[in-house]
């Protein structure tokens, strides 16, 4: 039996037993261990970010509340935003891709294993440096985008924003290195037979997303360098009082900021494009269109940033053109939503917890996307930006979108990572608690925003209706806390007594399900041949392999 398809010919990873235990994790360059470390660090920061969110919600439960002082409140929501974006969603997505991509393309490891470890540790160092600010005089308190004059030394009374700048530089460099590593892995280490047009959608979207990171993160690094010059060398690039320009910071930050939100949602699309077809039992509907619309979104994401600045008063012309380009992004997003929905048609849908999260992603992200379109319409943005309507929109897209997709991804790939299935019964509790808690917290915030409650206020006047809505939102936040506890419990229980998963618990068709769970250090001994987009399906149903069906249909 010839060795069918040898994976990349580098020497097998040197295995020295005495570096077992904790040191084997710290010194590891195996993409699987690094992926799990990404997930664990993301989970830990998710706890911190969630705690900050809880304190914010408790402070806002009643008008005139004195749970925290105003400056502490500002530190909390700034850190909540920065943590959830840079230390939870991006690392967890990086962790999932670092773990799954080499398996999906039949490779032994990523292109540069040591660079993979470096990018994790640099990114973690950035996160720890960011959190060190709490005990070093005060966390950043100028919001997750630190608008210019407020983040300048003249108006900040602690060096929190300096920690924000240096922490984000670390995270930016780490993520950039990870993205370069992922692009080279996908382009160079695919198993022969898997041409770039036959890769699973998860791989294609990760490739497009990594290109987005390579082009967007340097924009962040450059703007942070200039803000550091302002803060550390007391230069005046962004201080209007000395000739600088506050609007230049907004242009620079949102030039990174909007591609950044797509860096957070594209991996969510990638996970959903894998989970829904598997549990619907049929291939993704319109593979080419979903893949093509991803490239269109990535391209458009660089041409829309000024919809964050409609209220700045750059001129009607400017707002009009950016209104058009922002609305255009709704088209490729719409294509994806319709294609996922069409994948459900005439399927045989198994509602495992992963599928429940994926289908609820469809609904929640549609609400978030549609409220996003209302911001692309310039006059509405003039009324609704910087209100709780915006807070509701961003949480529907980030929590209802990325976090729901992450949870779907974790329930989907946990068996492959640990060899045991996550308990479906507890999972069901976890899903419904998350779903109810999320909607309870953020649906009412649409109304709060329409009633005129500005964003980032540590308290509000006692006007009719405001307290009840804020109280509902706080209750929802506690239900979410409960759901996270149930999730952690599920992980603990399943790691020890979960059902043994075997190689392919979900009867899926991508290559990672062709090896054992958890995979051996060298991932594959025998990689199945790849003729279409669903290698294991072609193996299991040779008569109904994809290319035969496609040829018959005379596509």
């Amino acid at each position: 039996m010839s060795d069918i398809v040898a994976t990349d010919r580098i020497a097998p990873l040197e295995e020295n037993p005495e570096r077992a235990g904790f040191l084997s994790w710290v010194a590891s360059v195996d993409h699987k261990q690094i992926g799990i470390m990404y997930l664990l660090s993301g989970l830990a920061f998710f706890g911190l970010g969630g705690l900050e969110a809880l304190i914010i919600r408790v402070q806002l439960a009643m008008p005139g509340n004195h749970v925290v002082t105003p400056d502490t409140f500002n530190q909390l929501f700034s850190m909540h935003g920065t943590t959830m974006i840079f230390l939870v969603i991006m690392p967890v997505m990086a962790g999932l891709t670092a773990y799954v991509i080499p398996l999906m393309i039949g490779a032994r490891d990523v292109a540069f294993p040591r660079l993979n470890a470096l990018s994790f540790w640099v990114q973690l160092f950035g996160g720890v440096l960011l959190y060190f600010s709490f005990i070093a005089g005060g966390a950043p308190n100028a919001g997750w985008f630190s608008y210019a004059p407020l983040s300048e030394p003249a108006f900040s009374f602690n060096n929190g924003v300096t920690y924000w700048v240096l922490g984000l530089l670390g995270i930016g460099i780490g993520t950039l290195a990870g993205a370069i590593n992922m692009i080279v892995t996908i382009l160079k280490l695919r198993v022969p037979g898997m041409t770039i047009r036959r890769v699973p959608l998860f791989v294609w979207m990760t490739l497009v997303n990594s290109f987005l990171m390579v082009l967007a993160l340097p924009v962040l690094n450059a703007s942070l360098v200039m803000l550091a010059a302002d803060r550390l060398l007391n230069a005046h690039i962004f201080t209007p009082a000395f000739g600088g320009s506050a609007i230049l910071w907004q242009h620079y930050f949102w030039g990174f900021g909007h591609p950044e939100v797509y860096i957070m949602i594209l991996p969510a699309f990638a996970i959903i494009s894998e989970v829904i077809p598997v549990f619907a039992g049929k291939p993704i509907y319109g593979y080419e269109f979903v893949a093509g619309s991803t490239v269109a979104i990535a391209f458009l994401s660089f041409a829309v940033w000024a919809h964050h600045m409609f209220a700045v008063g750059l001129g009607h012309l400017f707002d009009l053109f950016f209104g058009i380009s922002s609305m255009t992004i709704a088209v490729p997003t719409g294509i994806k939503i319709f294609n996922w929905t069409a994948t459900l048609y005439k399927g045989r849908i198994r509602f495992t917890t992963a599928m429940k999260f994926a289908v609820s992603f469809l609904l929640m992200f549609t609400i978030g996307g549609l409220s996003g379109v209302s911001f692309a319409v310039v006059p509405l943005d003039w009324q609704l930006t910087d209100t709780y309507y915006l807070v509701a929109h961003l949480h529907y897209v980030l929590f209802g979108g990325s976090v729901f997709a992450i949870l779907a991804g974790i329930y989907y790939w946990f068996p492959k990572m640990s060899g045991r299935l996550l308990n479906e019964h507890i999972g069901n509790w976890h899903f419904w608690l998350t779903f109810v808690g999320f909607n309870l917290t953020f649906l009412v915030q649409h109304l709060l925003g329409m009633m005129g409650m500005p964003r980032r206020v540590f308290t509000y006047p006692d006007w009719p209706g405001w307290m009840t809505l804020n109280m509902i939102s706080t209750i929802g936040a506690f239900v979410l806390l409960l759901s996270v506890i149930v999730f952690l419990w599920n992980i603990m229980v399943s790691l020890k007594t979960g059902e043994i998963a075997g190689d392919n618990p979900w009867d899926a068709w991508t290559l990672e399900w062709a090896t054992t769970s958890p995979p051996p250090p060298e991932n594959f001994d025998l990689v199945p041949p790849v003729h279409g987009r669903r290698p294991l399906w072609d193996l299991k149903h040779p008569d109904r392999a994809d290319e035969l069906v496609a040829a018959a249909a005379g596509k």
Partner: protein
Amino acid sequence: MSKSKLAVVLFILSEVVFFALLIVAYVYFHAYPGEGPTAANSLNAARTGVFSIFLFASSGTMALASRSYRVKSGAMLGWLIVTVVLGGIFLFGQAHEYMGLYASGVTANRSLFATTFFTLTGFHGLHVAVGLLAITVVAVLTASGSFGATERETEAFGSVEIYWHFVDAVWVVIFSIVYLWAFL
């Protein structure tokens, strides 16, 4: 294109965006300068032009080193050393210019021109220094005689070469925007 060459090309793509933003900031504040020293009254384009020629020459010697590496003519070590020396002279020129500016009171916070100038040329100098370090490593490996045998080392040398040509290309743009444009 080999793995490490592709990685360096991607890294260069990100560096292009990074420098593009620093240049846009410089250009913006060249159009709307606040008060304080500006490019016209504090830069000496001729002197920096001379040092720039050294940097561009180092790109040429790097290409010669790469050619001699391909034909295995053994002259590669010499060319690498010349490249490092030329790069070093350029860095010396930059350091000398910085000292002159500091002496005449043009520090990073004196004016918007000074801040963006030092940020832009400072980061380019950093990239030149890192490049010199990489070339020195390749030179030492070549001197030890074991370099050039395996295909991975060819990739590695190819990546260093591309990176060095990129650093020179960036200086062409920076030099023309910062120094030449100031006197146009």
